Structure formats: structure tokens, C-alpha cells
């Protein structure tokens, strides 16, 4: 008691201190940092104290500070110290109080906060925690909000389980909740009490009237089911209850349309009986059960079984089998129905039905049922089910010592019929049944022997197929029966010949051995018969037959066969000699196998009288010394234990064991957060870059940025992209062609068809909108132009070979658009170039051809963006001395050679003869990639013709969108799921209305324009992934219904995510 008080005061001290801290922080909003630094100083002082309570207090406050985001790693050692020294509840309290205080002190306390706390609690209630929190939760049970009451009631169940003592004080309140005005709370209370009652029904009898009222008044099936279950637990204890329940239960069974409720009612009635389980039922409940059982349950179950729903059928059969245990007769009348179920498609239903049949047979119907089963055996597909049927037939027939078999001839013929099954594994089972019946039922032997002789005669049917290993076991039984009871054989000579056929040598060894042995028995019988005749030659022929055939077995690889065969061969040779001397040997030979083998019951040994003078309890030797007398246990146990001890001793020095322990220790250390590891675990490395392991890292050689490499890096992306979207592309191509045709057909429609034509690519179209400096007059037919541009540029991206500018040339020319243009090869890098030059004859075609981004792991390199520009000379003159310059911003800079000033231009390292194009690459360094940006730039060049040369200038804008910082990165769904689970991603979402395009087009668009890749697609829902050059993960979930597209997105950088989403939105707003 005293201890409790002390503990209580410590607790109070704790929250007060933490409370002080929290209040203090809130009161020092202005200079929070300063206040906290003084607090931390105090905490440092506290941590130096010896008193563990003070330290724990300090740690508690640290916990709070850590949750606010302050770094408290400096105190890690002290925290570990407190954790390891103080009691478990201490620690949980620290955590829990911190938790509760956050909820309360932040000042926003709401029911949902507490709800979250309670839900969390349900996951980790421990006995200690249950004891400490029982009171708090009990208070919450009377909370004003039903939401909290409901959760508190359910949590109480967990608490009761862990800490049963809390049940007594909480019970009255729990009972109150049964009549709570809120149905949710009420059903929660019913739930809890029902579950408790199942464990210990006695205590809840007093609640019966209350529940009875609930049952008659409630219409909620969920609640009703629980109540009925509760009554199911109560009735065995209080028989009067059963009588009272008849009416409401009957009503329910009659009236309910909910199968689950019906099933529960029926089941409860059955289960209720099972608890009592005996014919000594109290009269009242007997009345109830008889009434319900015979009039309703079975009827209702019949309805269930007849239902087309497999689930109901299954449950009906399950319930039937429960009834069967106590009232087999009531079920037997439904034999037809159950036999029908054997035809069911569902194997588990058929098996259930088989189970039922087992209990349903009687002397009367056994033959009929087995006949039906035999039909099924013939029809059954799949050996598993057929084998199951076979074992079931044998089980049914042989149960309780063949109790139900009236005619064993019938049974033997069933067994013989079963041997015709192909590929069964139960040959052995059939064989043992045959042996059992033939040995135990004397009257049947004549018939059995005849059947077995036929089997032996037709043995080739079973041995023909080597794979039918299972069924040839039957021959074992057949041979033994024929040999042992050979006196019943009609034609022993024929059987003997059958047994000595050369084919027999293909049988398994143990069967051959039985063949040889029983051939000898047959031989003996034959001799006896033949010697009775006057003609001796028959007997000699038989001996000759044996001598001719047995050598085959003497050569057998199986030792058992060999041994038996050579013994018998010698014996027969000897007999033959005697026969030649006209000596009668039959009597002596038959003496070899004289006597009848009788079956011995397992308990037969008990009936053997103990010989006189034998005292089994007496010591044979002197008893061992006193100390050992404790071990006076059966020898087997002693012998078993002995080696165990010695092994245990051995293991202490065992090398393997040592290694194992070392391994275990390593494992433990790895899992122990307090153990300082020498090297970072591989797991940690993985966490830093979840989902990245599949991403191929491609490096570009930046030392020659202005040179066009043989295979541009983009190729690899294109390839990746291509592989994944090949199918889509084929489709697209077809559509594209169609559209183009349409367009050519009707020029007037151009504007209308514009959006459609964009569908797949047209980056230039959507992107270069920067036409500010251009007088409108110059851009004649502006809308037409943009459309044409789109059309002209369509082909490269569509063909996926945009990197070969030569191939585009004819198309461009055909479009006859003399305008400078920039184009982004990957679709999104949109750069618009404007011709600032009024003399439009000099046309230089210029694209920004693709943003290649150097993806080297480290962040510095990750900030580089490569812009590829294609220059194409569209005029008839020579272009030279091209100089590319961009106005740097704070965030992004053009990389210039060392030594040049920040405003110097970069000269393009080639000249352009008329009609020629070439590519140059420029490297930009980016500080931050979370925002899109535009850079202004100029290109100066000299046009040289025969007589003169003129300076020209071209202004353009480079538009770096956020999407252009994303790299199409394939991601597997596993890695994707893992990434999402890591939990440090921010969430955001957009909705697009009125998007009217097929879903795969929509996805292709996002992939193309925004560099995403599809991770997984299911119907009209797809998850997509991309990664920025700085390693931000961007995950999308795109869903469409009708014309509305919703995009949920997650990313570790919210600003970047917002911008990417805006860009996606813009992409679709333009269509």
C-alpha cells in the first residue's frame, strides 16, 4: 500500500514537471528557443543526479522535447541508463504521459485525439499497462461522446483479459452501457459481455433478463448474433432459460432473412446441447432441443444445403454433422440430400458430405450408400478425391468392427471392385482389409479364396502398368489368402501356375516373397490331392512344374525371394526324388504348413494366464541403492533420458553449437539498439534509398559535353520507355495515322482536331507559349502555326527516334515553316525560342533537344542538367561563329569553361552549311530543383553568303519545369510498396474534371510529359513512380471514373510535388 502511495506521488511529480515544461514552452512563444535551452541546461543538471527518479523525470522531459523536434541525442547515454535501470512501467509511463500530455496540453483536445490514443492502446495492452490504465479507461467509459465511450468499452475487454481483477469494479459500469442510448456503445457492450461470458458464463446469468429484453427489442443483426451466442453459453447453466428462449428463437428462425443470424440460432441450439452432451438433459431444455431440433433445425439446414450458395451448403453440412453426433436418426432421413452433395463441384463440400455419410450408415442403408459411393468413385476426376472416396468407403464399412456389414461376400466383391481403380495409392489398405476379413470371417473363406484366385489369374491387369505400384499390394493379400486357405481352391493347379508365371518377377520384392512361400503351400495341398489318386504322374508333373519355374525366383535380386526360392527348390527336388521312388510324401509336406493361423486381438495377451511361480513384480537382482530409487520408472523413459543428459553435456564443447551461439549473439547485438555497431548495417543503407535498387544508374561523360556521342544517353531511356510501352505505342501509331489522314482530309477542322492530335506528344505545342517579343504580325496565322508545329514534331517522338535529327528534316521542310523552334526531345523540356530578328529569311532551326541529366549518386552531381540543342540551318547561306549565352539566375547557372566571366557566351563548336543540323549540349548547374524556372538567353551567329556576312541574334527562353528534373525510373511494385510504407512522404492530391481520353492515353501522357513510369495498373487505376535528379521519390496514384481523374501523390519534398502536380494539371487543361 505504502509503495503504491510513493509510486503515485512520483507519478504526480512526473506529470507536473512535464506539465511545467509544456506550459513554459507555450508561455514563451516569443523566445521559445531560449526557454528551451535553459530547460535543457536544467535537464543536464538533473541527469547528473544519482537519484533515478530525477533522472527519469529528466528523460521524460527530453522525450517531449524530442517529439517537438529538438535533438536530444546528446543524452542518449542517460536515456539508455534510465531505460535499463528503471522498471518497465516507469518507461511506459514516460511514454504514455508524454503521449497524453501532447493530446491535452497542446490545447486542441478533441474526441478524435483520444480515439487515436485508445486505438493505439488496443494494439499493445500488456498486464502492467492494463493495471495502470484500467481506472483511466473506466472513466472514459462515461465520457460524454459516444465515440469515446464505444472505444473505451471495447478496450476494457482487452484490459480484462490482461488484468482480470479490473473486471469486478468495472462491471456495474459495463452493465450500464448495455442500456446506453447510443446503439454503437450498446453493441460494443454486448460484444464485450458476450466474449467474456464465453469464457466464464456463470457470472453473467444475472444479466439474462436484460439480454432477453435486448433480444426481443433489437433489430440489429450484429447485436442479435452476439446475444444469441451469449445465451448459447448460458442455457446449459440455467435450464429454465431454454424454455423461455423457445419462442423468440423460433420466431427468429422463422422470420429472419439474414442467413448469418439463422445459422447462429441453429448453431447455438446445437452447441448448447453439446455442452450438456448427455441424455440426462433437464426436462425443459430437452423440450427446447427436441422441439427445435426436429421441427426446425434440420428443416432449416436442409434449406441451407439446398441453397445454391456454396458457403451455405458447406455450413449446413457442418451443422448437420454436429447434430449427427447426438441425433443420428434425424439426419439419416436426409441421406438423399447428402448424397447429392457428393456431386458438388466444390471438393470441400464433397468431403464434408463424406464425413456425414460416415456417421449416417446403418445395417439397412450401408449397401445402398456404398453403391452410391462406388458410382462416384467411377465418376470422380482427380486421384486425390477418388482416393479419399476409397478410404471413406473402407472406413464406413469397417467402422466399429464391421458392425454394419451384414453380408461379407458383398464386402469382398466391393474390395475386388476397388482394385480396378487406376493409380490409387491405397492398395495396401485394400490388401489389409482383404486379409482381415478372410482371416476373421471363416464363413467367407471359400468365397474370398475364389475371388482371390481370379485376381491372381488376372494379375497382369495390375502388373501391366509399372506405375500402378499401389494397387499391386492387393496381390500380396490375394497370394497369401490363396496359399493359406488353399484347401478351398477349386482349381489349385491353375492358381499355382498363375503364381509361377514369369511376369511375377516384375512385382516388388516383398510380394514375390509371398508368392514363393504360398506357391509352396499350394504345392503341398496339390500333392495331397494328387496322391489320393491312383495316377502318380500328376503329382510328379506338379513337382516338375515347381522345379522348372522356381529357378526364376532363385535369381531374384531380392534376398528374401532368393532365400525362400532356393530353400523351396531344394525341398521340391528332394520331394521329386522321393516321388520317383514311389514314396508318399504328401502328409509330410503338408505338415510343413500345418495348423491354422488365428487372428490375435490386440489385448489377447491379457488373457494368457500367468504361469505358477512367476512373480513379475519381484526383483530378479538386488534393487539398486536408495539414491537411484527415484528413477524407478519404466526402462524406456530412463533410456530416453540418459542420452539426452549426455548430449547436453557434450554440446558445451561442441564446435557447431559454439558457432550457432556466436551467430545468435551477433543477431542479438544487431537487434539491440544500445549495442554500438562497428559498421552500419546493410539494412540501414537500404533505407536511405528505398526502391532505388532497381534503378539503373547511367553515367554520362561530361568532359565532352558539346560532342554528340555515338549513342545518346537518352537512347537508353527511350529503350526502357519503349519496352514498357511498346504495345501502347503500336496502338497510338495506328490512331495517329488515322488522325493525320483525317486532318489532311479537312483542313478547316484543324482547330477542333488540335487537341486530339496532341494526345501523344507535341511538347513544343504545349510548351512554347513565350511569344512576347514577337510582334503578332510576324507570326502569321498564329493558331495554324502552332498546330502545324505540333504536327511536324509529332513524328519524331512518336517514332521514338527523335535523336536522329536527319530523319526529321524532310518533314520539317515540307511543313515550310520558317521559324525557329525549339523542341524538347523527351517531351517535357520545353524551351521556346523566339525569333527576335525581323529579317526572317535567315532561318535557323534550333531545338532544345533533350534534357540529359547526370545521375551520379552524390548530390553535387545530381544538381546538373544537360540541355541538348539541335541547330539546323534552314536558309541557303553558311552559318558560323555561333555563340550561345544564357542569363544566369541565382539558382541556375550555365557551366562555362574555367576562366570565362559569368556573362560570357559559349561558342558552339561547329559551323552549319545550308540545310545541315547538328547538336550541342550545354550543362547547367541547379541549386534547387523544387521550383520551375525560366532562363533568358541569346544565340548570336554570322550568316555568310558570297558577298557579305551579317550578324544575327536570336532570343530564346529556356523553361525548366519541375517535370524536367524528374527521370523516368522503373520501379517494381514491391519496392514501390516499401517506399510508401516508409512513411516519411507528404501527401497531396488534385482532381481533373472533364478529361475525355482513354485511360491508357492519359497514363502515356503523364509518362511522356512528366517522366513517370507505370508501376502497376489495375483497370482504371494506376500507380506511377518517378525520381528527381536529386533523389526525391514521387509516387502517383491515378484513378479515373467517367471524366474525372483524381491524382493522389506522395513525395518527400512537398514543394516539388506541388509544382509537378500543377504541371500535370496544366498538361490536361490544355486538351
Amino acid at each position, binding site marked *: 500500500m505504502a509503495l503504491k502511495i510513493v509510486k503515485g506521488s512520483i507519478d504526480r511529480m512526473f506529470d507536473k514537471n512535464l506539465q511545467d515544461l509544456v506550459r513554459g514552452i507555450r508561455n514563451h512563444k516569443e523566445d521559445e528557443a531560449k526557454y528551451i535551452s535553459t530547460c535543457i541546461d536544467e535537464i543536464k543538471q538533473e541527469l547528473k543526479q544519482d537519484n533515478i527518479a530525477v533522472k527519469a523525470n529528466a528523460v521524460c522531459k527530453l522525450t517531449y522535447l524530442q517529439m517537438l523536434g529538438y535533438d536530444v541525442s546528446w543524452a542518449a547515454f542517460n536515456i539508455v541508463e534510465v531505460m535499463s535501470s528503471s522498471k518497465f512501467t516507469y518507461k*511506459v509511463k514516460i511514454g504514455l504521459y508524454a503521449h497524453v500530455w501532447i493530446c491535452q496540453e497542446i490545447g486542441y483536445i478533441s474526441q478524435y485525439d483520444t480515439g487515436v490514443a485508445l486505438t493505439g492502446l488496443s494494439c499493445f495492452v500488456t498486464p502492467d499497462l492494463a493495471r495502470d490504465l484500467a481506472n483511466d479507461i473506466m472513466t472514459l467509459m462515461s465520457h460524454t461522446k459516444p465515440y469515446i465511450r464505444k472505444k473505451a468499452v471495447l478496450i476494457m475487454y482487452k484490459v480484462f483479459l490482461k488484468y482480470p481483477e479490473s473486471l469486478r469494479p468495472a462491471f456495474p459500469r459495463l452493465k450500464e452501457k448495455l442500456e446506453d442510448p447510443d446503439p454503437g456503445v450498446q453493441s*460494443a457492450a454486448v460484444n464485450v459481455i458476450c466474449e467474456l461470458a464465453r469464457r466464464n458464463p456463470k457470472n453473467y446469468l444475472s444479466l439474462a433478463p436484460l439480454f432477453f429484453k435486448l433480444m426481443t427489442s433489437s433489430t440489429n443483426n450484429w447485436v442479435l448474433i452476439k446475444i444469441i451466442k451469449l445465451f448459447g453459453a448460458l442455457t446449459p447453466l440455467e435450464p429454465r432459460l431454454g424454455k423461455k428462449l423457445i419462442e423468440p428463437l423460433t420466431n427468429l428462425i422463422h422470420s429472419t432473412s439474414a442467413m448469418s443470424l439463422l445459422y447462429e440460432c441453429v448453431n447455438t441450439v446445437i452447441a448448447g446441447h453439446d455442452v450438456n452432451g448427455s441424455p440426462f438433459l433437464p426436462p425443459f431444455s430437452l423440450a427446447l432441443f427436441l422441439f427445435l431440433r426436429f421441427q426446425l433445425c434440420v428443416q432449416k439446414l436442409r434449406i441451407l444445403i439446398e441453397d445454391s450458395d456454396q458457403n451455405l451448403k458447406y*455450413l449446413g453440412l457442418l451443422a448437420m454433422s454436429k447434430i449427427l453426433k447426438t441425433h443420428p436418426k434425424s439426419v439419416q432421413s436426409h441421406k438423399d440430400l447428402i448424397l447429392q452433395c457428393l456431386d458438388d463441384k466444390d471438393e470441400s463440400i464433397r468431403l464434408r458430405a463424406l464425413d456425414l455419410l460416415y456417421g449416417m450408415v446403418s445395417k439397412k442403408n450401408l449397401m445402398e450408400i456404398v453403391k452410391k459411393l462406388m458410382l462416384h468413385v467411377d465418376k470422380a476426376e482427380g486421384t486425390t478425391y477418388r482416393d479419399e472416396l476409397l478410404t471413406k468407403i473402407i472406413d464406413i464399412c469397417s467402422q466399429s468392427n464391421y458392425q454394419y456389414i451384414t453380408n461379407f461376400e458383398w464386402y469382398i466383391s466391393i474390395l475386388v471392385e476397388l482394385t480396378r481403380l487406376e493409380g490409387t495409392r491405397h492398395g495396401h489398405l485394400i490388401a489389409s482389409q482383404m486379409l482381415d476379413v478372410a482371416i476373421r470371417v471363416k464363413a467367407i473363406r471359400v468365397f474370398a479364396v475364389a475371388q482371390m484366385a481370379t485376381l491372381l489369374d488376372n494379375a497382369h491387369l495390375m502388373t501391366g502398368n509399372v506405375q500402378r505400384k499401389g494397387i499391386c499390394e492387393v496381390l500380396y493379400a490375394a497370394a497369401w489368402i490363396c496359399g493359406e486357405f488353399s484347401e478351398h481352391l477349386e482349381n489349385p493347379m491353375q492358381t499355382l501356375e498363375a503364381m509361377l508365371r514369369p511376369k511375377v518377377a516384375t512385382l516388388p520384392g516383398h510380394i514375390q516373397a509371398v508368392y514363393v512361400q504360398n506357391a509352396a503351400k499350394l504345392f503341398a495341398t496339390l500333392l495331397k490331392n494328387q496322391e489320393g489318386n491312383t495316377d502318380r504322374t500328376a503329382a510328379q508333373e506338379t513337382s516338375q512344374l515347381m522345379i522348372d519355374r522356381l529357378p526364376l525366383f532363385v535369381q531374384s535380386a531380392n534376398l528374401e525371394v532368393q532365400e525362400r526360392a532356393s530353400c523351396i527348390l531344394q525341398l521340391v527336388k528332394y520331394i521329386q526324388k522321393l516321388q520317383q521312388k514311389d514314396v508318399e510324401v504328401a502328409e509330410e509336406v503338408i505338415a510343413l504348413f500345418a495348423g491354422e493361423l488365428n487372428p490375435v486381438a490386440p489385448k489377447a495377451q491379457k488373457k494368457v494366464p500367468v504361469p505358477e511361480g512367476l512373480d513379475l513384480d519381484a526383483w530378479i537382482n538386488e534393487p539398486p541403492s536408495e539414491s537411484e530409487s527415484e528413477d524407478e520408472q519404466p526402462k524406456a523413459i530412463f533410456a530416453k533420458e540418459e542420452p539426452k543428459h549426455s548430449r547436453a553435456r557434450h554440446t558445451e564443447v561442441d564446435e557447431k553449437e559454439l558457432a550457432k551461439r556466436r551467430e545468435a549473439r551477433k543477431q542479438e547485438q544487431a537487434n539491440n539498439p544500445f549495442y554500438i555497431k562497428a559498421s552500419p548495417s546493410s539494412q540501414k543503407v537500404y533505407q536511405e534509398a528505398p526502391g532505388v535498387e532497381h534503378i539503373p544508374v547511367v553515367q554520362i561523360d561530361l568532359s565532352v559535353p558539346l560532342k554528340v556521342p555515338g549513342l545518346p544517353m537518352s537512347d537508353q531511356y527511350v529503350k526502357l520507355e519503349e519496352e514498357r510501352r511498346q504495345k501502347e505505342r503500336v496502338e497510338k501509331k495506328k490512331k495517329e495515322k488515322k488522325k493525320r489522314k483525317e486532318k489532311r482530309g479537312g483542313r478547316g477542322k484543324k482547330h477542333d482536331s488540335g487537341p486530339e492530335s496532341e494526345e501523344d506528344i507535341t511538347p513544343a505545342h504545349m510548351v512554347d507559349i513565350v511569344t512576347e517579343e514577337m510582334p503578332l504580325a510576324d507570326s502569321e496565322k498564329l493558331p495554324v502555326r502552332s498546330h502545324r508545329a505540333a504536327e511536324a514534331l509529332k513524328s519524331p517522338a512518336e517514332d521514338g527516334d527523335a535523336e536522329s535529327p536527319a530523319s526529321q528534316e524532310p518533314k520539317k521542310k515540307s511543313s515550310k515553316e520558317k521559324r525557329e523552334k525549339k523542341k524538347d526531345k523527351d517531351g517535357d523540356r520545353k524551351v521556346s525560342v523566339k525569333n527576335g530578328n525581323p529579317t526572317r529569311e535567315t532561318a535557323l532551326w534550333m531545338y532544345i533537344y533533350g534534357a540529359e541529366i547526370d545521375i551520379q549518386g552524390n548530390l553535387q552531381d545530381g544538381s546538373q542538367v544537360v540541355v541538348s540543342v539541335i541547330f539546323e540551318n534552314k536558309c541557303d547561306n553558311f552559318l558560323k561563329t555561333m555563340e550561345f549565352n544564357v542569363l544566369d539566375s541565382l539558382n541556375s547557372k550555365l557551366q562555362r569553361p574555367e576562366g570565362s566571366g559569368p556573362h560570357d557566351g559559349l561558342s558552339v563548336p561547329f559551323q552549319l552549311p545550308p540545310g545541315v543540323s547538328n547538336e550541342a549540349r550545354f550543362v547547367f548547374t541547379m541549386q534547387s530543383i523544387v521550383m520551375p524556372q525560366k532562363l533568358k538567353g541569346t544565340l548570336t551567329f554570322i550568316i555568310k553568303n558570297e558577298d557579305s556576312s551579317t550578324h544575327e541574334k536570336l532570343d530564346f527562353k529556356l523553361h525548366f519545369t519541375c517535370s524536367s528534373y524528374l527521370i523516368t525510373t522503373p520501379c517494381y511494385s514491391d519496392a514501390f510498396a516499401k517506399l510508401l510504407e516508409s512513411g516519411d512522404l507528404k501527401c497531396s492530391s488534385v482532381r481533373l474534371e472533364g478529361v475525355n481520353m482513354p485511360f491508357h492515353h492519359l497514363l502515356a501522357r503523364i509518362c511522356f510529359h512528366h517522366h513517370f513510369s507505370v508501376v502497376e495498373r489495375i483497370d482504371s487505376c494506376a*500507380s506511377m513512380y518517378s525520381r528527381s535528379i536529386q533523389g526525391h521519390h514521387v509516387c502517383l*496514384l491515378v484513378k479515373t471514373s467517367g471524366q474525372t481523374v483524381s491524382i493522389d501523390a506522395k513525395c518527400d519534398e512537398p514543394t516539388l510535388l506541388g509544382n509537378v502536380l500543377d504541371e500535370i494539371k496544366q498538361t490536361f487543361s490544355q486538351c
Partner: protein
Amino acid sequence: MQFMLLFSRQGKLRLQKWYVPLSDKEKKKITRELVQTVLARKPKMCSFLEWRDLKVVYKRYASLYFCCAIEEQDNELITLEIIHRYVELLDKYFGSVCELDIIFNFEKAYFILDEFLLGGEAQETSKKTVLKAIEQADLLQEVRPHVVTLHFNSALFLIRLLRLN
């Protein structure tokens, strides 16, 4: 209810909720075993299995299998109802729910489950009330995400504490 598993046709576990304490190893073993057994069953078969000393109730919705383990005395049909109700809730919340929703917004899926089932027992039988509670919680998250983060952190802290013992 002992636990609930959601897995895809390919056998990938999408969501798991355990209402009985088990070791991770045991959980993995159970999951593997059950996923194999359930996936091997043909579509025409009934939804119930007897497995160890428990009953397993499963149902397939599109590409996802919902699988619950219940005790001997529990009602299979009501468990099917629970599964169906959960699917209805997910569907209402996500709007024609699909497997990817559960991968992407797995925390929401867990949250809905927590609002519907608590400690393995049906907590709220009214769909409306559950959805209302979820909406409220969403609102809460929007208004003051930092509180949610704090909850998250402190819950993590608690769990870590418990793990230490």
C-alpha cells in the same frame, strides 16, 4: 477475430492486422501458409477453411483476397459480412476501391479498419458512423498535421519502448 490479411492474386501481402500477439516469425509463417492455401482454392469453392484449430474465412474481391481467421465458436457468415462491410467502407471512402488504393493509401486503409474493428471485435455496425469518424479524422489531419505527426511520433516511441522489453 484473430487476424485479418489482405493479399493479391500474386500472393503479395497488402495489409495485415493481428489481434493476437505473435512473433514476427510466426506471423510470416502463418501468412505464407495461408496465402498458399487460399490461392490454391478454385473459385467455385466455398469460403471456409479449417486451418489448425481456427477457421479461416476468405473472400475475393477483384484482385484482392480478404482473409480472416476466427475461433471455433465464431460465426462464419457474420465474418463474411464483416469482410464485406469493410470492403464497402473502403469503396465508399476511396470511390471504387482497387488494390492500388490500398497500397498507396495503406494508412487510410488501416485507419478505416481500426474505426470498424477494435481488438478483433466489430466496433461500429453503422457504415455512416464509421465514415463520419474517418472524415473527421481526415479533417483533423488537414487542419493540424503537426498534431498527427506528434501522435505518430509518440506512438512510435511507445512501441519502441515496448519492443525493448
